[in-house]
């Protein structure tokens, strides 16, 4: 009897809990069902068990269908939402960033509220190394005939290129997003972009510079300027077409200023890279070792 008493108390405690959970069940319950319920959990059948399971499923579906961000920002899962792209999606986004189609918006057509950070990050990384390597090759080819030329893999340039490109890819979208949000508060427009979507557009628009940079190895100035022009036209027009709907309903002066800034910064990046990495200024570097070579004999005789 003592055993049963103990078990009874345990069952009652359980029953009270169940009462709290499922208020839809009537208070009048056959004792057998309640006492047998925890034992029945081992058996699949039973209406009580199913109801509890469906209750659990409702919970799960509510969590899943709701917002994506449930994870805190220091876990990997939070950022996994930003890498939710497949290979064909990345390919189509890259193609879309190079082909300006009037009337079709890059963001609406390709990104569709699934901005990813994979494209911007790896396109910038590829561009950094492409610039550094092509610059290296072009200076090597340019000074082939010089007797005092000492080939040097210029590693500092990788760091400079990385700083320039990554700051362009992140700071300019930040500034643009700030401007758009500020104007949004004054003039309501139909289209508004999130910060990540703007980063996405800028990142993918840099893709066209990769083949252009590889073409810069060929040491013909005309070819270099032509390739810059073509690349600028294509990606610049994609950028303008993307941001035109967001700003079109504003005052004309603001519209002109923003669009000019977008295109202007794009041009500045391209021309700046060409000037720094690929021009005659790089030749000045080779004269320095020449001077040192000439200087050392004098030091030794002293």
């Amino acid at each position, binding site marked *: 009897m003592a055993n049963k008493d103990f*078990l009874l108390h345990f069952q009652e405690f359980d029953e009270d809990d169940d009462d709290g959970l499922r208020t839809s069940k009537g208070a009048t319950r056959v004792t057998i069902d309640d006492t047998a319920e925890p034992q029945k959990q081992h058996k699949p059948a039973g209406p009580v068990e199913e109801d509890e399971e469906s209750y659990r499923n409702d919970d799960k579906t509510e969590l899943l269908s709701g917002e994506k961000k449930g994870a805190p920002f220091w876990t990997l899962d939070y950022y996994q939402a930003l890498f939710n792209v497949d290979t064909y999606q990345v390919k189509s986004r890259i193609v879309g960033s190079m082909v300006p189609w009037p009337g079709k918006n890059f963001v609406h057509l390709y990104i569709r509220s699934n901005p990813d950070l994979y494209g911007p990050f790896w396109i910038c990384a590829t561009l950094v190394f492409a610039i550094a390597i092509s610059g290296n090759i072009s200076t090597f080819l340019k000074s082939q005939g010089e007797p005092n030329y000492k080939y040097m893999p210029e590693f500092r340039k990788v760091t400079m290129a990385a700083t320039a490109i990554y700051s362009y890819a992140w700071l300019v979208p930040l500034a643009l997003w700030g401007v758009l949000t500020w104007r949004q508060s004054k003039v309501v427009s139909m289209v508004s972009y999130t910060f990540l979507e703007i980063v996405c557009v800028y990142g993918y628009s840099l893709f066209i510079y990769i083949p252009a940079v590889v073409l810069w190895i060929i040491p013909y100035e005309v070819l270099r300027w032509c390739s810059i022009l073509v690349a600028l036209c294509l990606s610049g027009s994609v950028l303008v077409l993307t941001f035109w709907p967001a700003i079109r309903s504003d005052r004309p002066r603001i519209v002109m200023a923003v669009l000019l800034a977008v295109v202007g910064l794009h041009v500045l990046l391209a021309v700046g890279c060409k000037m720094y990495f690929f021009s005659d200024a790089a030749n000045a570097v080779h004269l320095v070792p020449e001077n040192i070579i000439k200087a050392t004999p004098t030091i030794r005789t002293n």
Partner: protein
Amino acid sequence: MAEVDEPGKPLFAGLSDVSISEDIPVEGDISVPVGSQNVDDVFSTLDEPVKDTILRDLRAVGKKFIHVMYPKQSSALLRDWDLWGPLLLCVTLALMLQGGSADSKEDGGPQFAEVFVIIWFGSVIITLNSKLLGGTISFFQSLCVLGYCILPLTVAMVVCRLVLLGFTGTISFIIRLIVVTASFSWSVFASTAFLADSQPANRKALVVYPIFLFYFVIGWMVLTFSPSQ
């Protein structure tokens, strides 16, 4: 309380209807370990001579080197990961990339720290990338594979240095180009053989491309090494 007060109804009446289809056997083994000697002592390595410890680790590293040179679908590299091999390869490569073209301090070849940072930082970024894309491989397993697959490029570095001792000019450049290209493709092939299975099928190219870029950059550093005269 209701159950206690009901006289006629037997308690747990429903239980008699509950029948478990199979008998749950209850059996087991209870053994009390005698003294301090238990099963773990087989793996305890505190009492063995240092030579045994070092040799065991070296043998594990060596076995993984062989797995890299002949990459087939084996999980040995993934299961027992260690970072000794990558460290050894990274230090060797960085040391061999020294002593080059240092007429002027700046704009020379990569410094030791630069090579180190590129290899380790690059591996971490690629691992993070593959995990973010939904890969099922663990962080250190991926670092281990990426580090071990630098082995072909280290071998290429040794060959390049020997070639630079023997030949000069265009011939040496062509030989070095061929060697570095071959070893770079070997590295990419070996690492994708180990890593590609842990990725979802529609994102394989997205994961392989950064690995390609990583070994390309290291191959570029190996190829453009020019010794000081």
